[in-house]
């Protein structure tokens, strides 16, 4: 006897309701409020609620002026995109390559592997502010350990240029962004490492054994077995790397504050400056929308690549 077409029970939907309510209250509603605020000239204090009535809203509405200013009159905001993009590019390549290499190394049955896993995962669990301050000392122009190491090399090798080395890495416009990128990559590679390691452990050993029997070299095994089976993990790691790096903020505040000049400004520091430095909440919201849409576009492109790669 087949079951008649009974109405679906309501219970599953009731279970979903609390989560849905939380999502609507804490994500959807703020998003709409943010979008509406992006069309205002408002300092966040007066008037208390610019949406109180139509008249108050219209008094502070500026149409698309905030967006026009972003696209036509705020070159620093776009420079900050390029700078965050540069750090992201470095993180996508160098940081993730290092994470993959270390994951492959640790995936073997070697003595002390557990210790290495712990060590490699230490930087990500440290606070960004702590990491920033630690590296600030390393990079210090006068008494930093990096300059001291270079001078020591200079003294021991007799290279006069290195023996007298003095460079304020974070204050020099040529090195500041790269110096910050190195800190970010040092702090971030542990996440990729853990994910790659988890991915590697899901690849059946039999595949490698069969390849060995067929005489495949180590490189061939990596290229034809490891690489394709790790593609989904790689895509997830790269999406997280892009999203995490583009939103870099605390590290910048702890090391350079966006300087020297505008050389290490990133989108979030610019949004923060508009909101709390200039008290331009409407403009900051518009910057947030533009930034969010950019990240969304990049993520969609990456997901498209994933679909193509896995098919």
């Amino acid at each position: 006897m087949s079951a008649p077409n009974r109405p679906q029970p309501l219970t599953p939907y009731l279970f979903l309701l609390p989560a849905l309510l939380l999502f609507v209250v804490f994500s959807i509603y703020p998003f709409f409020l943010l979008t509406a605020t992006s069309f205002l000239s408002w300092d966040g204090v007066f008037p208390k609620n610019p949406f109180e009535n139509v008249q108050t809203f219209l008094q502070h509405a500026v149409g698309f002026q905030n967006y026009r200013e972003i696209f036509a009159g705020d070159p620093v905001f776009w420079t900050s995109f390029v700078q965050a993009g540069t750090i992201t590019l470095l993180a996508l390549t160098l940081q993730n390559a290092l994470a993959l290499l270390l994951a492959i190394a640790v995936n073997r049955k070697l003595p002390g592997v557990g210790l290495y896993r712990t060590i490699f995962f230490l930087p990500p669990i440290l606070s960004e502010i702590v990491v920033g301050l630690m590296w600030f000392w390393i990079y210090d122009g006068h008494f930093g350990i990096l300059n001291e190491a270079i001078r020591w090399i200079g003294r021991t090798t007799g290279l006069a240029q290195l023996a007298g080395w003095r460079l304020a890495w974070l204050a020099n416009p040529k090195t500041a962004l790269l110096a910050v990128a190195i800190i970010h990559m040092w702090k971030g590679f542990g996440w990729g490492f853990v994910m790659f390691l988890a991915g590697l452990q899901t690849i059946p050993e039999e595949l490698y054994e069969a390849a060995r029997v067929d005489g495949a070299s180590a490189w061939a095994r990596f290229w034809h077995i490891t690489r394709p089976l790790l593609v989904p993990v790689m895509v997830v790691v790269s999406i997280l790397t892009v999203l995490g790096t583009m939103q870099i903020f605390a590290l910048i505040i702890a090391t350079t504050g966006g300087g020297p000049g505008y050389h290490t400004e990133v989108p979030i520091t610019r949004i923060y400056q508009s909101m709390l430095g200039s008290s331009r909440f409407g403009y900051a919201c518009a910057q947030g929308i533009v930034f969010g849409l950019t990240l969304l576009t990049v993520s969609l492109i990456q997901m498209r690549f994933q679909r193509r790669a896995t098919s």
Partner: protein
Amino acid sequence: MIRKHNHLPHRMTAWCLALVSGGLLLNVAGCGKPAAKGPAPLRVWHWMTDREAAFNELAKRYQAGTGQQVRFELYAPSEVYAQKVRSAAQTDGLPEIYGILGEMRDVASFVNAGHVLSLEEAMQQDSSPAWRSVFFPSALATNAFQPGNAYGVTPGVYAVPIDVMNVQFFYNKKLLAQLGLNPAAPPATWKDFLSVGKLAAARNLLGFVSGWSELWLLDCFATDYAIHTMGAKKLEATYRGQVPYTDPEWMKALNLFVELRDSGVVAEGIVAMGNKRAEQLFANEQAVFAFNGTWGVNVYRSMNPQLDYGIMMPPRVLDRPMVTWGGAGSSFFVNAKSPRRDEAVAFLRWLTEEPQQRYLVEATHNIPSNRLAAVGLPQHLAEFADDMAATVHPRLFAVQEDSAVLETFDKGLQSILIGEATPEQVAKEVQVVKRRIMSREASRRPAHVRP
């Protein structure tokens, strides 16, 4: 067996439900009003966490004298505090007394939104001595709106400071002597100051440090020299848009930063240096000069009690008196929407009286806002207090510069210091932003007030 397995999830669910319900009940019980014993405490919000012990002691004394409990709630860092106050203003959750971090424009918004009580009436009430008269004039003026101000705020005083500060040069006497200079007569002119750069470098010392990655401190220095070289009126005219930043006198002021860089007196990397780092370098006797505020006295005392230093006005470029940024202090505002605003005013009146101000000097090593308590200050604080008459503060101008213009200007100064921009380039860039801001403001002004 099967039955047993089926019961397990139910039992777990029951336990979970009991735990959640218990938690909720506890929360609800916690939300109830506490058993009332006397009047509720007056709440005070501020960001000066380093003064917590002193504030709590004063709260105890006030309670002992009046029976009124006061609770200081201090939040750091200051950026987080600034957000907290704005959020509280949005929800009408401000305490009876609080501080506002920001420029006059921000204070004006709080006033216009009805969050700040005018203290003008309280200031004019008869008391001996009159409340207004006990303060350093500049300290009170930085908390007042003048008639015809640009924000449409009713003129008057809106906050009281509990201390005052200014920013000057600290110099290390021992290091000056090591460089062959007289520690009793530190370089008073710009030329003599710059000459210290080479002497310091020869001894592997830093000439001058300051937290110039923090733009406001760099701006203090620039404001001092802008006023010194061109006068306060011209600076204000620039803010009004009547004098361009490309004016020859502005170029002279900007060129001082080229001279600073070329002399080698400024520490390499000063543009990435936070003030905490600069304070460490000076306290560790690695730098001869530091540009820092009154609070430095307390900071250096805690970092290196043996440090032998003096305080001097910034070295003058021209043969005319030098000015120094300051005059303002940590100020308290009264919440106009609080039903207990009169009690709040009474507490602030008590807090700024001479005995409490003297206690704050002892406990926090700052210049008191009450002039009567500033008599007989410790040596270093007295050196700062002596120059209070020479202080300047952007809040005292009828107009303030837009923050975007200030940021472009200060970032430009950083670019000059690292040698990637000339004063001419910086001036042009700042003027472009200034023009953009002015046209934006003009377009938003109602048609009937447009020029």
